[in-house]
């Protein structure tokens, strides 16, 4: 556990979260959410939760992003805020 690396990943996670809710293009927001999930996964691996990190990498970042993209594909891509 290296605390400098931890702080850097925490900053990345916060930046990704702020970007994901501020982008007007919904497809871009969903992809940024996938990047957020992967940074979260690295953070949890650093904290020693390898099972949770594996689950997040396959479930949250993989299938979750695909489901969001499928739903955005069926509805509208633009958002007003």
């Amino acid at each position, binding site marked *: *556990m290296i*605390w400098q690396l*931890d*702080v850097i990943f*925490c900053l990345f*996670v*916060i930046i990704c*979260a*702020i970007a*994901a*809710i501020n982008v007007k293009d*919904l497809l871009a*927001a*969903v992809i940024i*959410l996938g990047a*957020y*999930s992967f940074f*979260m996964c690295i*953070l*949890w691996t650093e*904290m*020693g*939760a*390898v*099972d*949770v990190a594996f*689950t*997040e990498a396959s*479930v*949250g970042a993989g*299938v*979750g992003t695909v*489901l*969001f993209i*499928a*739903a*955005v594909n*069926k*509805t*509208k891509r633009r*958002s*007003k*805020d």
Partner: protein
Amino acid sequence: MLEYVLSKYNFWTYAILLIIGLYAMVGKKNLVKKLIGMNIFQSAVILFYISIGVKKGGATVPIFLGDAHAAHGHEIIIDAAHYFIPLPHVLMLTAIVVSVATTGVALAVLILIYKRYKTLEMDEIMKIRQDTGA
């Protein structure tokens, strides 16, 4: 001040992520943005639980690293201070899978809303509902 923040930086990250998710759920008008905020909120809670399971001082991941088959016959003494706490990992592992399943149900509801109102903005939906009196 900086040292005070750095001593519990993961709890501060959890608080900031949680208020970002809450703001997206309350303040944004697009329904997909609300769902993204809900996902961020869930990850923040999971981060909090994982932070509880960390032990300093030479602890490692909760997997027994020695030869399990050689130790089958006689009793092994395992020191609890050498491994992280497995209980928060178990609870959060199932929570992630359930969160994706509930996100799927939410997206299905969202597609039904789009089929009926042809929009995903909350204020437009409320306006249509007021105009038609439904």
